[in-house]
C-alpha cells in the first residue's frame, strides 16, 4: 500500500534516532526459527478504484431486500432505517473513538451511551441497561451467567419457541458455565405456563420470547409468574419494535429483559454487526456484564458521564468478572438511540400498529391455513403452504418475491410451514403480490 505515512527520509532519520541500521534489525528479538521469510500468499494489492470495483462486483452477486420483495424475518428484519441514523453513524468522532476510558476525551459518546441505557430501560421497564452486548443470541448466554451467580442454581430453562439460534448459543456456552439446559416444548405455538413451571424447578432462569419465534404472543405475564413462583429469574427476550404495543417485561415481573436491537435502527447486513441489549432490575446491577455509564460531576460540579461500576469487569475483577466482554456494539446501539429518538413514543406505537395491521391484512389476503390459528401475532405468522416450504420459496423467488422462512429448518413436523414477516416497509400492494405469487 503506497499511502504509508512515512517517507524514506523519515525512515532514515528515525532509524538513526533509534540507533539501528535497518527496519529488519527492529525485529531482532524474534527468534530465527519462528520468522516468516516468504511473501504472504495474498492477492495483489488493489488501488482504491479497483477495490471499490471488486467489492461492487461481490455485492452485486447478493440479492438484497431492495432487489427482491422480501417477507423474510425470523430474527433479522427489514424495517426502515432513517437517514438520521446514517448521519449519526458517519460522524467520524463517534465512528472512530475507542471505548471511553478517558472521560474528559469522551463526554459525547458517554452521554450517548447513557441516553441509550435510558431508552432501553424505558422500553423494557427495567432499571439498568448496559452499553450493549454482541447480539440477541449472546445476551441470552449473558442472562444465564447472571442467573447462575444470582441464584446459585445449576440449570436454565428455554422455551422451545425462543429463536433457535438463541437456544443454540445458550447451549454452546452452558457447559462452561456449569449449567444444564432444559427446553420446554410449545403447545399450539405458545408456551404452557404449567409445563414451564414444572420444568423450572431448581432453575436459575427461564427464558421465553415475546413475540416468540413463530410470531405468536406468549402468555408472558403467566410465564413470568411461573418462573417467579419457584425462584427462577424470569427473562423475556423481546423485539424492541413491539414495545410500543406490547407490555414492558418489567411490568409483568421479569428480572431481566434481553433482545436483538437490529429491528430498531440497524441494517440487516447479513446478520451483523448489530446490538444485543440486556436490562435488569436494580438489585442485579452488580452482576451485569459489560460497560455501564453513570452520571456524576467534574471538579467544578458540572454534570459529566463516566464508565462506572467497573469492578464488575474483566480488567479489574479478571477471573471473577461478571463477563469477559470488552468490545461491545456501541456504535450500533447509538444507531438504535438515534432511531428511537427519531420515532419517539408515538412513532414506536405507530410502527408496531402498522406491522400488526399489515400482518393481519396478509393473513387474510393469503388465505392459507395458519399453523397456529388460535394465537394472536405481531408482525410474523406461520402458514401452511401445502407443499414443501423450500419449493414454494424457490418458486416465489423466481418471481422476485422472497415469501419467508421455512420453519422445517429448525422444527420437525412442519414441512410445509412458512414463517411470513411483514414490516412497515411492505404495502398492501406488496402483500397482494405475495398472495398472487403463492397462489400461482
Amino acid at each position, binding site marked *: 500500500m503506497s499511502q*504509508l*505515512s512515512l517517507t524514506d527520509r523519515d525512515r532514515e532519520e*528515525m532509524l538513526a534516532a*533509534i540507533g539501528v541500521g535497518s*527496519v529488519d534489525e*527492529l*525485529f531482532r*528479538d*524474534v527468534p530465527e526459527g519462528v520468522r516468516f521469510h516468504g511473501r*504472504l500468499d*495474498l492477492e495483489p494489492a488493489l488501488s482504491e478504484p479497483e*477495490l471499490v470495483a471488486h*467489492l461492487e462486483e*461481490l*455485492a*452485486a*452477486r447478493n440479492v*438484497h*431486500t431492495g432487489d427482491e420483495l422480501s417477507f423474510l424475518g425470523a430474527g433479522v428484519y427489514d424495517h426502515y432505517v432513517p437517514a*438520521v441514523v446514517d448521519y449519526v453513524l*458517519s*460522524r467520524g468522532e*463517534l*465512528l*472512530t*473513538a*475507542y471505548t*471511553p476510558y*478517558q*472521560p474528559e476525551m469522551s463526554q459525547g459518546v458517554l452521554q450517548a451511551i447513557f441516553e441509550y441505557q*435510558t431508552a432501553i430501560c*424505558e422500553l423494557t421497564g427495567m432499571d439498568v441497561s448496559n452499553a450493549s452486548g*454482541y447480539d440477541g443470541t449472546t445476551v441470552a448466554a449473558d442472562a444465564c451467567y447472571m442467573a447462575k451467580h444470582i441464584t446459585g442454581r445449576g440449570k436454565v430453562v428455554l422455551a422451545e419457541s425462543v429463536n433457535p439460534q438463541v437456544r443454540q448459543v445458550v447451549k*454452546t*456456552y452452558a457447559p462452561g458455565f456449569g449449567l444444564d439446559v432444559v427446553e420446554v416444548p410449545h403447545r399450539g405455538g405458545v408456551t404452557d405456563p404449567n409445563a414451564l413451571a414444572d420444568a423450572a424447578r431448581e432453575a436459575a432462569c427461564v427464558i421465553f420470547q415475546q413475540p416468540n419465534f413463530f410470531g405468536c404472543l406468549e*402468555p408472558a405475564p403467566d410465564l413470568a409468574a411461573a418462573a417467579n413462583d419457584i425462584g427462577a429469574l424470569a427473562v423475556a427476550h423481546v423485539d424492541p419494535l413491539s414495545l410500543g404495543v406490547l*407490555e414492558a417485561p418489567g411490568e409483568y415481573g421479569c428480572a431481566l429483559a434481553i433482545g*436483538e436491537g437490529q429491528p430498531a435502527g440497524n*441494517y*440487516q447486513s*447479513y*446478520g*451483523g*454487526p448489530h446490538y444485543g441489549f440486556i436490562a435488569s432490575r*436494580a438489585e442485579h446491577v452488580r452482576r451485569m456484564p459489560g460497560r455501564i*455509564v*453513570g452520571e*456524576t460531576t467534574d471538579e467544578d460540579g458540572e454534570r459529566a458521564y463516566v464508565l*462506572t461500576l467497573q469492578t464488575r469487569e474483566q480488567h479489574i*475483577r479478571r477471573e471473577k468478572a461478571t463477563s*469477559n466482554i*470488552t*468490545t*461491545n456494539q456501541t*456504535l450500533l446501539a447509538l444507531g438504535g438511540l438515534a432511531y428511537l429518538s427519531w420515532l*419517539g413514543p408515538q412513532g414506536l406505537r405507530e410502527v408496531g400498529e402498522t406491522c400488526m*395491521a399489515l400482518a393481519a391484512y396478509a393473513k387474510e389476503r393469503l388465505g392459507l391455513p395458519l399453523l397456529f390459528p388460535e394465537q394472536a401475532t405481531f408482525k410474523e405468522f406461520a402458514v401452511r403452504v401445502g407443499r414443501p416450504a423450500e419449493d414454494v*420459496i424457490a418458486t416465489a*423467488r423466481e418471481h422476485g418475491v422472497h415469501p419467508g422462512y421455512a420453519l422445517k429448518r429448525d422444527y420437525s413436523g412442519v414441512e410445509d410451514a412458512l414463517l411470513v414477516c411483514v414490516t412497515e416497509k411492505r404495502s*398492501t400492494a406488496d402483500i397482494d403480490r405475495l398472495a398472487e405469487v403463492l397462489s400461482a
Partner: protein
Amino acid sequence: MKLVYERSKAGRRAATLPRPDLPVPDVPTDLARGRAARLPEISEPELVRHFSALASRTFGIDTGFYPLGSCTMKHNPRVNERVVNLPGFRDLHPLQEEDGAQGALELMWRLQEILAEVAGLPAVSLQPAAGSQGEVTGLMLMRAYFADRGEERRKVIVADTAHGTNPASVTMAGYELQKVATDARGNIDVANLRDLVDGETAGLMLTNPSTLGLFDENIQEVAKIFHDAGALLYYDGANLNAVCGVSRPGDMGFDIVHFNLHKTFSQPHGGGGPGGGPIAVRERLEPFLPVPAVVQDGDRYRLDYDRPKTIGKVRGFCGPFGVFVRSYAYIRAYGPELREMSEAAVLNANYLLARLRDAYDLPFDRLCMHEFVLSARRLKREHGITALDVAKRLMDYGFHPPTIYFPLIVAEALMIEPTETETKETLDAFADAMLEIARDAADRPDVLREAPHQRPVRRVDEVKAAKRAVVRYGFEDHPDLSAEPSSARQLEAQKGA
C-alpha cells in the same frame, strides 16, 4: 449539555411513517402496553444538532493522535465505509438463500483464506463477535478437543501481563486459572512455567508480543513445554499488528489464534464496538469449529452445518458481516505487502521510545515491537506526579492519552502504541509534549495535577459515580448530583412510575 430527553417536548416528532388505511388488531388486554416508553419527542433538526454536539464532545482517531496501548487505534480508510454501505451488503438478509448470497459468502471465504495465511494455520471461523468471544470460543475448542480424546484437563495458564479478558474467559469456559510470571527481560518465566504444566493442563493463553510490547524470545521453548504435555497454545491476537508477515502465530507454535479485526484490520471502534474476533486453528481442531462453516464448492460457496463435532454456535448467523467487509477491503489494499504495515508500526513505536526513554522509566530495556510501556514512577516519587496526571495533561496538547496502569506488573504504567498511521511530525509533537510534561512535573506540578484545562469537562468524579450509581435518566425524579451525596447507598435509577 442537555440530554436528548431534556430537549423533548410532548407533541414533537421527527419520524414520518406509512399509515395504511387498515384496521389495527387488538392486542389481548393483559399483553398490551400500559404506560408508553418516555422516548424523546424531538424534531429532526434538533436531533441532528444534538448528535452533532455529542460528536463534537468526542475524540476519535479522526480527530487526532490516539496512542492507546493495546488498542491499535489506526486510521479507518474512508473507502471501507463506502463499500460496507453498498446495498448488496447492507440490505442483505442473513437467511437469504445461498444462491442469493454468493457475493457475501465468497467475501467471507476469501477473508478466511487470508486470515489462515496470516496466522499460518489452515482453518478459520469468522463467527466470534470480538476478541473476548474469540477467546472463549478457543477455550471451548480446547474442551471439545480433549473431550473427544477422552481426556479431562481442567487448567489453563495465563501470563501475569495478560489482558483481563484472558482470565475472565478461562472462568467462563469452565477452566481453572493458573498464572505464570514474567522474567526480568519481559518474557514468560520458563522455569515457573515448567513447574505449572502437567497432565491437567489444557493450554496456555498468550499475547505475543506481550502487553509489554515485547516479543517472547523463548516462544519455541514455551510451545514445546505445552506440546510435550499434550496441551494446546492459544494466541491472543490483540497485538498482531506488530508481526503480520513477520512471524506467524502458527509458526510460533500456537494452535488457536484469534484476530481483532477492529484493531489489526481497521474496523472502526465506534466508541466501544463493533469488533470482530475470528479464530484460526490447526487441522486437528477444525472439526470442533462453530457452525456454519463457509466452504467453497467448485465455483459456488455455501454454508456447511454438517459438522458433527462442532461446539455449536457462539453468535447469530455467520458473525459480524459488516466488519468482514471493512477488514477484507483493508487487507486487499495492502495485498502481500501487509508486512509493511507491521514494519511501520514497529518503527514508529521504537522511534517514540527512543525519544522518551530518558525522561521516563523503562522497566524492560529492549527494542519494542508495536508498543512499549513506560513508567512514571520516578515522577511520582520525586514530584508526586502520577501516570494519571501525565495522561490528563496530554489532553491539553490535543492528544488522547495512552493506556495507563496496565499491564499490572508495571507501576505507574504508560502504554503507548502509535500505529503505522502516524507521521513523524505527529510523533515528534507527541514526544515534545511528553518531555515538556516531564519537565513541568518538576517545575509546575500543579498544572499537571489540575489537568485537563481545555476539555469540555474537568476531571470527573468517579467515586461519586460508583457510590450512587445513576445509570439512566430519571425524568422528573432525576437527581441533582451537584448536591451532597445522600448517605443511603442505593441505585438511584428510577423505575418508571
